[in-house]
């Protein structure tokens, strides 16, 4: 469990080479210019990163969750924002591949696997965040079609994606009245809000997705009516691992930059690395990241094995890894002194990008709620 096999080593090496050459050199500019690099995403797709843990039958890479967390950590070392969008896209691809029928999979997976067609996950609403089961976007059956009305909030990839996987209410029965419906871009009545101005994650668009009498065939629904909430939550299990891995990647880069800076920077008659108080800080950063990585790998193995405690472990790993990543990035700013506050050194971007990982894919408070309830129920 703690040693990478030969194939995993080769994957990590490939993703590192790809990200070092094609993502890292541009990450700061994309952040500053709010550029969403769909061409680079398509390159990642050609390498198999569009449907990493989807079945090979329709173009997925057929890898495990344990492989996926390694891949996302490597991508995030170059840019957490790009890595995190690829995670969201993978979440959608996996949900379609796992809960769609063969006709749906054949229609949507090939394009998503190569990332020539991008996906957006549409769960959150302006009035329904952590309490997702309270969502009000409605899909009303009209003959062979659903008519969707409502608004989704904080949607990554909105406006650029080809497919919107929408959790919509088909009955007034709480979480059991939600269905998962695929809405293709270009469908009449589908529109988008303004680009949100954000603290970080600037290299991917975040917008509202607005449905005004949007009509799609009933055949665009994944699974049965009422399955939507379960599908959305299962998608999030993997999403939580991936976003945790994205935080570790960002944190790892921040740690490595800090160690290099402390060796180079001289003050008070010697290199800063010789100051024990700073060395202790590095040790804490490394320990936090390794602790989180260890738990994340365990949670990924649990999800691969379909273990009973997978949900709990994924929640724990998401919370621990996203906290560890942000705290490491924030500590790295402090270790760099004034330079850490300058954009040029790349650390403030990592901290800005990682901050939102503690909020999304289920906030870290919701993770604690999931864990706490499981204790209470036993």
């Amino acid at each position, binding site marked *: 469990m703690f040693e990478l096999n030969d*194939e995993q080593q*080769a*994957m990590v090496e*490939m993703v590192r*080479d*790809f990200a070092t050459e094609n993502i890292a050199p541009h990450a700061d500019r994309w952040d500053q210019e709010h550029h969403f690099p769909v061409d680079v995403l398509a390159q990642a797709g*050609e*390498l*198999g*990163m569009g449907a*990493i843990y989807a079945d*090979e039958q329709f173009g997925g*890479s*057929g*890898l495990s969750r344990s492989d996926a967390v390694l891949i996302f950590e490597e991508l995030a070392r170059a840019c957490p924002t790009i890595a995190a969008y690829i995670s969201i896209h993978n979440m959608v691809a996996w949900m379609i591949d796992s809960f769609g029928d063969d006709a749906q999979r054949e229609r949507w997976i090939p394009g998503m696997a190569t990332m020539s067609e991008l996906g957006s996950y549409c769960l959150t609403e302006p009035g329904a965040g952590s309490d997702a089961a309270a969502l009000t976007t409605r899909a009303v059956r009209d003959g062979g079609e659903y008519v969707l009305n409502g608004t989704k909030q904080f949607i990554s990839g909105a406006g650029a994606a080809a497919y919107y996987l929408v959790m919509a209410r088909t009955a007034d029965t709480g979480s059991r009245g939600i269905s998962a419906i695929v809405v293709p871009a270009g469908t009449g009545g589908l529109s988008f809000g303004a680009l949100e101005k954000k603290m970080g994650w600037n290299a991917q668009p975040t917008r509202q997705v607005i449905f005004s009498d949007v009509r799609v065939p009933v055949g665009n629904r994944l699974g049965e009516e009422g399955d939507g909430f379960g599908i959305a939550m299962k998608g999030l299990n993997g999403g939580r691992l991936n976003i945790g891995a994205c935080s570790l990647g960002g944190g790892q880069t921040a740690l490595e930059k800090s160690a290099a800076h402390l060796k180079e920077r001289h003050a008070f008659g010697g290199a800063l690395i010789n100051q024990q108080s700073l060395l202790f800080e590095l040790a804490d950063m490394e320990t936090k990241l390794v602790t989180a990585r260890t738990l994340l790998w365990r949670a990924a193995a649990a999800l691969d094995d379909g273990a009973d405690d997978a949900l709990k472990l994924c929640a724990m790993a998401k919370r621990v890894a996203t906290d560890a990543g942000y705290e490491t990035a924030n500590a790295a700013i402090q270790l760099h002194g004034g330079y850490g506050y300058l954009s040029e050194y790349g650390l403030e971007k990592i901290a800005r990008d990682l901050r939102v990982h503690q909020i999304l894919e289920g906030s870290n408070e919701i993770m604690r709620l999931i864990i706490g309830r499981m204790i209470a129920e036993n």
Partner: protein
Amino acid sequence: MSVASGGPLKVLVLVKHVPDAQFDRHLAGADHSIDRSESILSELDEYAIESALQLIEARGGAKAGHTVTALTMGPERAAAAVKKALQMGATDGVHVCDPALAGSDAAATSLALATAINHLGGFDVVLAGMASTDGETSIVPAQLAERLGLPQLTMASALELGDDGVLTGRRDSDTTSTTLQATLPAVVSVTDQGEEPRYPNFKGIMGAKKKKTVTLALSDLGLDAAHVGVAGSWTHVEDAQARPPRTAGTVITDEGDAGVQLVDFLADKKLL
């Protein structure tokens, strides 16, 4: 051979496991050999693999029965170079591995490679990088062509194979660009001016496990140990020393005449 008569195209790519060029390299031991602890597939060979894959893909790829065989010669750990080639898309591998091959110079290496190629039944195209990033002799492909009695297209890029079995390539120099042709079978070395080598995708990485690699010892090739390795080499390294570190350049302190001093310095060096 096969391709001209409409059969599948058989390409062989020579790959070498070399010390990673991004790190400092060190010579060690009495035989002045290079420290090989951090080794990878030679980056220049990746261009040969890319060219080979494009040659077969232009004709329908492995699905149409065309093959790209990756061959390395080296100790056990050199198998990693073949593996990387298989991950990139080569269809099968060959590892020529024998302790007696250690210390082979270019001539001995080309003898072992030519013997292995004949043993394997020959190929339509034998591709190599323009040089290894360790020995950097650049001579092995030419020696190999001589030993096999085949035409050679060295230092080529932009390879194209016509239906008539004629291989065309471009050779660029500082001032000229020459188009060269050879009939198959041929030995070709490619530069790094061609298309960037692909990354191995996840499917390639997972699929490489199932691909076959044959290991051949000298006895399999019927090759006498006296003709290869240190014993069979025509050249020997007598001595090797690290270059002295560069000394600091001339520092001109500006006391009002720095410009003049600078011009004098450049004129002295005949740079002006």
